[in-house]
Structure formats: structure tokens, C-alpha cells
């Protein structure tokens, strides 16, 4: 097995204790950092997402895979050039005002990061203004992702989406998600996209950003 394959396998199976050593070894062998990221880790997370969609793996397995990748990326970060072309751009994510649930949002953030985005996670119970000013300070934002987990906070998502639209800021796509969200509701709030799970959210973000 090549070092790249070993890295991919470590990410897929969530071997977070091994990943740092493997990435360091790969760098030592002279393998390009970008190649390690793309062909080793991002590809592996793609597989993980696919398996999750097919219900072949469980949520914790996706979490440990993403965690493993994060650890590997830490080793790569200093080696990756600033203008790294593999990064898909920035994604701003947060749970809308009034909603404190973050498991789904965290999972989406991890998957989107694993897909090659730089994720700015605003956390939970995020005020509308905070979303707008985050987009303002990060003009290279490609995706804004809103989450809510309660039917009672759906109006809050509606307001946030409307405020972002009304701000006149552009250059990014808006995606929404969360347990009570439907395709229909996503259209109502004027989102550019909607998915039902974290893995497809990452695929969608990637598609919208390119």
C-alpha cells in the first residue's frame, strides 16, 4: 500500500493516533502536501460521506474520520502554501438566533472543512447582524450555511436569510439545513441549496463554490 493509500485508510477508519505519523512520513518521502491533502484525506472523506449516505456507517464513525483528517491537516498546514489552490474558499456557518443545538451544525462544519473549505464557525444562537458582518469581513466567502433544529426557530432562519439577501453582499451562495427544514422551506427563504444530511451538504457546498 502506498503512503497516500495508508493515509486515506487511516482517515476512513478514524485512526487518529496514526495520522500524524503517517502524514509526517509522507512529507519525509517527498510527497507534495497538496497531493496528501487531496488524494489522501479529502478523497477519503468523500468516501466516508458516500458510505454515510448509503447508511453503511454511523454518525460517530463519520465524526472520528473528520477528527482524524483535522489532525492530519494540522501537520500539513505549515507546508501548504498560502495561495493553495486546493482550498475551495471560505464557508461561514452557524445556528440561527434562538437555537442552541449544534451537533448537526458541527457535523456539517466538519464535513465541509473536510471537503476543502476554510470554515468560519460562528457557533449557535447567532444574531442576524453577526452573519452579515462576518460576510462583510470575509469578502472571499463562497458559502454561507444556516442551521436550525427546531420548528420554533424556523422564522428566525427566514429573517436571517432575508437580512443576508437585503445586505446587498454577493459572491456567495446560501445553503440551509436542519431537522425541520424541507426543500420547500429552503425555496421560500430563497436559499441556493438544501440537503438532508452533512455528507450531501459538503457535496453541495463544493458544487456551489466551483
Amino acid at each position, binding site marked *: 500500500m502506498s503512503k497516500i493509500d495508508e493515509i486515506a485508510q487511516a482517515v476512513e477508519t*478514524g485512526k487518529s493516533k496514526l495520522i500524524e505519523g503517517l502524514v509526517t512520513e509522507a512529507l519525509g518521502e517527498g510527497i507534495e502536501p497538496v497531493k496528501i491533502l487531496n488524494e489522501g484525506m479529502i478523497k477519503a472523506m468523500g468516501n466516508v460521506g458516500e458510505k454515510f449516505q448509503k447508511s453503511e456507517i*454511523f454518525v*460517530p*464513525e463519520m*465524526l*472520528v474520520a473528520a477528527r482524524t483528517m483535522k489532525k492530519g491537516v494540522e501537520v500539513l498546514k505549515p507546508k501548504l502554501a498560502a495561495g493553495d489552490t486546493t482550498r475551495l474558499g471560505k464557508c461561514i456557518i452557524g445556528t440561527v438566533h434562538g437555537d442552541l443545538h449544534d451537533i448537526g451544525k458541527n457535523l456539517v462544519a466538519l464535513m465541509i472543512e473536510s471537503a476543502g473549505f476554510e470554515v468560519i464557525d460562528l457557533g449557535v444562537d447567532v444574531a442576524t447582524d453577526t452573519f452579515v458582518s462576518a460576510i462583510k469581513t470575509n469578502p472571499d466567502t463562497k458559502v454561507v450555511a444556516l442551521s436550525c433544529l427546531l420548528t420554533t426557530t424556523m422564522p428566525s432562519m427566514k429573517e436571517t436569510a432575508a437580512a443576508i439577501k437585503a445586505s446587498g453582499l454577493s459572491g456567495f451562495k446560501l445553503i440551509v439545513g436542519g431537522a425541520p427544514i424541507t426543500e420547500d422551506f429552503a425555496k421560500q427563504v430563497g436559499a441556493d441549496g438544501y440537503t438532508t444530511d452533512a455528507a450531501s451538504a459538503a457535496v453541495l457546498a463544493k458544487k456551489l463554490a466551483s
Partner: protein
Amino acid sequence: MILIGEKINGSIPSMAKAIAEKNEAHIRDLAKKQADAGASFIDVCASVPETEELDTLKWLFDLVQSVTDVPISIDSPSAKIIAQAIPLCKRPGLINSVSMEGDKVDTIFPLIAESKWECVCLLSDDTGIPKSAADRLRVFGNLMKKAEQYKLSPNRLHIDPLIEMICTSEDGIAKVTETMQKVKAQYPTIHLTGGASNISFNLPMRKFINRAFIILAMNAGMDSAIIDPLNKDMMGLIYAAEALLGQDELCMEYIGAFRDGLFGEGK
């Protein structure tokens, strides 16, 4: 959970037959299967007359050690036999068991003091099986004095509070759980063990009592058990209980055991 595989025990009729017939393949197979199922120790009990016991144990140890590196749990009522059996094991395992009866502790503890051997200790003494939790804790106190005297650290001891049949009891396992909780409170690194099989004696559908017991005892701090690791239903419950007790980060042990087919519909 520390799983002590119970299947190689001459008091089980099919195993008694295998021992009598020198059915080596059967014994090797059971050792291997228990190791593959995640046993931390493989209990070996000859259950033959004492004159033949040591030879039988040696023969059984060799069979087990020819197929797995999982350490052996030497199961004998005689401390003297245990003492002679220790050098026959390739690696440190578990003594099953000593109690405060007679000179058992004084025979075994000094022998294993300087080693990595672990030891199951029953909370009975020359007065028999203590009736109350307070009495068992008194025996435990005396036992720990011995452990200190021979410099055995608590994390090498598996305390068995003695599980009696439940059908004649009026307060269920309260005595057992109280003993377990108090032992664990005094020595957080000590192990608590127990065999489930006694508890269901004389009741129909014993498996339900055994399984309910394991879960309740785990809740009281039991982290070691003498069980059949090939019993997939029991294994599923143990992994599930560990996850529910917050002893399994992200339920990965549970998922991993499922993936390995240790329970569920798998292999």
C-alpha cells in the same frame, strides 16, 4: 469491561466430556473463539480430583497457549494447586480465586507480589459467606490489609462481592451493589467482578436474570465479569451498557464490536 471467558471449565458437562476424552481440538477451538470474541483472560478450570488436577491444568494450559496469547485465568479451589500452576503459564494472567478463608491469601499474594499477575478475591472468610454488606466490607478491609502487607496494588485485584441466588432473596442485589459501590469508593482503581450464573439459580429463563444482573452490576461499578464471550446477546448488552454509562467515547467501542461481529446478525 474485562471479560473472563468461562467456557473451559470442567464443571460444564460438555467440557467435562471433552477433558475425559482428551478432545484437544474442541478445547483449542473454544480457546481461540473466546480470544477472538475479545476475552481479556481465558479461565481454565479442570474440575477433576485434586490428584489429577495439576496434570490436567498443564495439559489445558498448553492447548490454550498453543492457539492464543490471551493470558490464562487459573481457576482452582486449591491455593496450593494454583501456586504450582502459576509457573506453567507463559505470561502473567489472573488467579481465580482467593478469599480470606484459611491461608489462601498468604499462599498466593507473596507468590505474585513481584509479578504482573492479577487476582480475583472473594469476600468470604472462615465464618463463611457474610450475610450483610457491612460484613462483606469488613472482610474486604482485612483483605486490603493483606494486599498492603504484600504490596499488591489495588488495580491488580478483582473483588468478587459474592453473588448468591436471587430467588430466595428479598432485597434483590442491593447487598451486592452496596458492597460494590463502597469498595469502588475506597479504591477507585480496583476492579469489581462477579459471575452471573449463580444469581439465576432455580429460576426459569435464567438468561434474563443474568443479563439484567450484568447491567445493574455495571451500573454499580462492576468492570470485570466471568462470562461466555460467545454469547452474542450478552456481549451486545455489555457493550450497550458501557456506552450508556458513558464509558465508550462516541460509542466507537460499541460500533467496533458490532462491525467485528461480536454481537448482532454478523458472522
